[in-house]
Structure formats: structure tokens, C-alpha cells
């Protein structure tokens, strides 16, 4: 299906009248309207996060003014698609979804997969056409009560992406999702991926702005629901413009003997705060999360991660690596939480930070909360500067300083590249990293 992207251009803000008009323009099933109304009530009753909140005390959001942005209320203004696509090189995708400003403009699925019951489509549309599937899982992991951003997102999400893989169906080619956001626009999309027992899929998700300097407001949510023995590879490349504000809640629930490999690359945004949680809810579940952050100028990226061992005999492995330039800042707060009775847990988390300037700053806060007595949980964190001797050595062999720094940065990220089994993703990440490296004198 191809449609024209449309957003509302009427001046308005995120207030009661805008929400009422938003609902008027929706064609949602009743249960979804009720969900939205409840979430809006939470939004109205909550305060914006403050520096007194543990998760926000290292987040500088005073410069964020929501009234600078207008919600997407109706769907009637065409917007040209100009954002780059980076993850599709050499990929023969089984299906694809594209959106502009949180409104799906293109959806496609190889008929052979559709015949086996696979669903790939706009979440808004699927809420009507596959209502029992969506209703059972939407907001099952991301609660609108988490904070004011999650409440707003739950109330006013648009478009969205829904991927459903039925029992024992293997989608052996990637499904590609591309989210574009115009300069000064709003994207409030919601990603819902459901894998039934024995299902397998690879999702390549990327988001981008039309230019490096673009602004915008992304308030999003990701829910990955995995039943027993399912296997998911989820890749997310965030390449918003340098003036975008991003707030997102991302959750995965992993069932018995299921595996998730989640790769996150964060390159853009002026400020981004991601609350990422993986819950291992049945024995034998395994998760691997690989994170890459590469920042410059005054970018400020915050990742709060939680590896939640709900059941016994589960494995989690989180590795986040950041490279910081200029006056940029990253914050990583990682927690391994082991529930009472979740014995034989194997949890690992690590965060490495490489500073390329004197004025960059990284805050790394790993944590453990263990309520079982037969577990193996370890964590580590390193932060440091580039070794000038390495650069000097490379320069003595004929490389420029920029080339030397690029080599060192690539080597720093190599541990994550080694974990990524999809070549197009490795290449896209490598190219994104090369673009970010400054030309140092």
C-alpha cells in the first residue's frame, strides 16, 4: 500500500482541545479510544520529570518546550520524503514499512509470508483489522503511567508499526522499518512486534531527519513480545537531526527458551532519553543487547536500561559503548534486577566510554538488585581518553590524525561489530561512525 503522508498543520499544542480534535479524526476501535482517554488522564495528572527524579537527575530537559511543537491531529498535508535510508543496502527485505512524522506511508509484505499469517502493517490500521492481536499486546509492556512522556505517547500515538509472526513461522529475510521526521515536526509512533511460539524474525528499524540540523520531537514506544522458543533480532539505528528531542520507552518480554538480540545505535538528537527494559519472564530466556553511542557538539544522550530476571535459568548480556566528542554527554544507568526465585541467573552488563575531547562527559552507573542466592551477575564500566601514543604511532606510519582517530574508534566498537551478524547493519554502523568523526587538527 502506498499513501500520502499527512499531518495536521493547524497551530495547536498538546492540550485538551487538541486531544479532543485528535480523537475526532481517529477511526479507532472503542477499546483503543478508551486506552487513549485513560492515558490522557494520566498525562493531565502528572508533572513533567524533574531533576529530583532518579532517572532524570542527569537529564537536561529545561530547554524542551512542548508548545514549540504541534500534535499530528489529522492526515491531510503531503510531506516529501527526503530522509536517508541506511540499513537496506544489499538487503532483500521480506517486508517494509515507511512513515513520515509518525504516519505510515508505505507498507509491503512478500505475499508468501502473508499467506503464512505474517502481518506487517500500520499499527493504526491493524488495530482495526487485527484488533484481537493488537488489543492483546498493545501497552502490555509500556505503561502509560511510567512518566508524562509515556502517558502522552500512549494517548496520542499515530501510525505506528505492527509486525506479527505466527507460531512456528520463520521469516528468514529482514523486515525493514523506516521512520522519517520533517524539520520541526513530531513523531509519536509506536512499534509493536509480536512473535508467537517458535517464530523467528529480523527487524531493521531506522529513523532519520532530512538534515543534520533538523529539529523535532520524537515521543515513541517499542514493545517486543516474544513467546516461547521464538527468536528475534531487532536493530535500531537512531540518526535524528542534531536538534531533535527524543523520549522513548522500549520494552521486551522474552518467553521460555526464546532469544532476543537487540542492537541499538544512537547517533543523532540534541537530547535523547531512552528507558530500555528487557524482562526474561520464563526459564531459559536469553537476551543480548548491544548499544553504540557516538556523540558530538552538545548532544546529551541518556540510556536507562534494566535487565529484569523474572524467571530462573535466564541469561542477559548488555554491552554499551560510547564515543564522545566536543562538549557532548552520555549517561548510562544500567540495572540487573533478579527476582526472588530467579535462581541460576546469568547476568552481565558493561559500559565502555571513550572520550575524544577534554570537555566531553560520560556518566556510567551500573547497578545490581539481586533477590536470589544462586546467581552469577557481573558488571563493569570503563571511561578514558584516546591514548595519544596510539595516534602518534599511526601518524608515524603515514596516517592523518583523523584517520588515526577513526581507526581507534572503529577498533573500540569492534567488539559490538563482532556480535552483529547482519552485514548491512555492520556497514551502516561503520559508515555512520565514520561520518561522526571530527577532522581533528
Amino acid at each position, binding site marked *: 500500500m502506498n499513501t500520502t503522508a499527512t499531518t495536521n*498543520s493547524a497551530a495547536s499544542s498538546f492540550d485538551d482541545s487538541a486531544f479532543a480534535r485528535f480523537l475526532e479524526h481517529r477511526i479507532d476501535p472503542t477499546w483503543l479510544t478508551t486506552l487513549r482517554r485513560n492515558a490522557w488522564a494520566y498525562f493531565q495528572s502528572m508533572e513533567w520529570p524533574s531533576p529530583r527524579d532518579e532517572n532524570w537527575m542527569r537529564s537536561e530537559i529545561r530547554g524542551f518546550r512542548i508548545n514549540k511543537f504541534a500534535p499530528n491531529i489529522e492526515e491531510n498535508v503531503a510531506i516529501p520524503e527526503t530522509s536517508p535510508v541506511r540499513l537496506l543496502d544489499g538487503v532483500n527485505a521480506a517486508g517494509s514499512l515507511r512513515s513520515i512524522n509518525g504516519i505510515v506511508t508505505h507498507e509491503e509484505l512478500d505475499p508468501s509470508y502473508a499467506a503464512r499469517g505474517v502481518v506487517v502493517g500500520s499499527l493504526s490500521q491493524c488495530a482495526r483489522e487485527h484488533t484481537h492481536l493488537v488489543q492483546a499486546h498493545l501497552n502490555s509492556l509500556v505503561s502509560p503511567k511510567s512518566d508524562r512522556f509515556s502517558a502522552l505517547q500512549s494517548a496520542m500515538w499515530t501510525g505506528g508499526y505492527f509486525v506479527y509472526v505466527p507460531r512456528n513461522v520463520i521469516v528468514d529475510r529482514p523486515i525493514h522499518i523506516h521512520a522519517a521526521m520533517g524539520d520541526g515536526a513530531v513523531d509519536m509512533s509506536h512499534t509493536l512486534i509480536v512473535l508467537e511460539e517458535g517464530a523467528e524474525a529480523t527487524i531493521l528499524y531506522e529513523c532519520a531527519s532530512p538534515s543534520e540540523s533538523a529539529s523535532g520531537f520524537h515521543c515513541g514506544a517499542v514493545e517486543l513480545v516474544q513467546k516461547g522458543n521464538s527468536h528475534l533480532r531487532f536493530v535500531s539505528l537512531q540518526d535524528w537531526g542534531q536538534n531533535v528531542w527524543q523520549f522513548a520507552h522500549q520494552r521486551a518480554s522474552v518467553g521460555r527458551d526464546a532469544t532476543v538480540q537487540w542492537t541499538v545505535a544512537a547517533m543523532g538528537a540534541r537530547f535523547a532519553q531512552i528507558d530500555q527494559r528487557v524482562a526474561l519472564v520464563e526459564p531459559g530466556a536469553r537476551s543480548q543487547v548491544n548499544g553504540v553511542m557516538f556523540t558530538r557538539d552538545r548532544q546529551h544522550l541518556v540510556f536507562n536500561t534494566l535487565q529484569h530476571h523474572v524467571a530462573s535459568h535466564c541469561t542477559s548480556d548488555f554491552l554499551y559503548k560510547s564515543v564522545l566528542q566536543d562538549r557532548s554527554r552520555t549517561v548510562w544507568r544500567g540495572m540487573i534486577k533478579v527476582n526472588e526465585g530467579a535462581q541460576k541467573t546469568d547476568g552481565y552488563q558493561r559500559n565502555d566510554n571513550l572520550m575524544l575531547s577534554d570537555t566531553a562527559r560520560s556518566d556510567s552507573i551500573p547497578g545490581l538488585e539481586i533477590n536470589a542466592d544462586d546467581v552469577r551477575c557481573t558488571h563493569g564500566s570503563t571511561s578514558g581518553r584516546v591514548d595519544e601514543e596510539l595516534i602518534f604511532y599511526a601518524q608515524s606510519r603515514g596516517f592523518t590524525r583523523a584517520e588515526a582517530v577513526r581507526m581507534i574508534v572503529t577498533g573500540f566498537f569492534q567488539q559490538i561489530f563482532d556480535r552483529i551478524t547482519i552485514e548491512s547493519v555492520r556497514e551502516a554502523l561503520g559508515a555512520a561512525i565514520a561520518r561522526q568523526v571530527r577532522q581533528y587538527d
Partner: protein
Amino acid sequence: MWPVSNKEVIINPRDFQYACELGELTPGKPSTFEVDDRFVVLVQLDGQVYCIEDLCTHDGGTLGDGELEGHCLVCPRHGAKFDVRNGHVTCMPATENTPSHEVKLDGSRIMIRLND
């Protein structure tokens, strides 16, 4: 319509920029203002106006809610102190200075030049 962005107006950070009116400051009490997407603390003390970055170099928190002890602004979180006259750190747990910014008065308008 989408909100009009002011980013077409290119501001050289080396230029003096308007921060606030002198009357908005209470002598001896820090006040926070946003200038060119950055937050700064202004203090009127002994007939002078000083400006430092609203940033504690210890944990990256804000200083604007802190209290003055002499010429020093005390971080409300962990007690680090910064001299408002030059941004120099004078008390642990911070160990690095915070940027200070040049101030000038244009009538009743307080103008500051952001120090990168």
C-alpha cells in the same frame, strides 16, 4: 502552522546576548536564565553582576537552586562550591571549574557573552 524556528538568525556565541533585565535580579540571590540554548546563573553581588554556567562539574547537575556563601555558589546536591566571579571551584567534590561568562550592562539590560 509549524512553529517558526529562529535558527535562521545566526548568533555568534562571541557576541553579547540579552539575558534579562537588571530588575529581575535580587541582590545576593542566584537566578537562572536561558541564553542561546544554554542555562546560566546570574548573581548580583556587591553592586556587580556575575554570570557562570548553570552546571556543577561534579555530577552535571544544576547550580541555580544553590545558595550563596560569600562569593561562592554552593551546589544543592553535594555541596561543591564555585566562585561566581570566575567559575573557579573552591570545594570538593567538584574538581574542575565551571565556565564563567562576561557580563555588561546596556542600560537596564544585562548582556552576556557566552564563553565556550
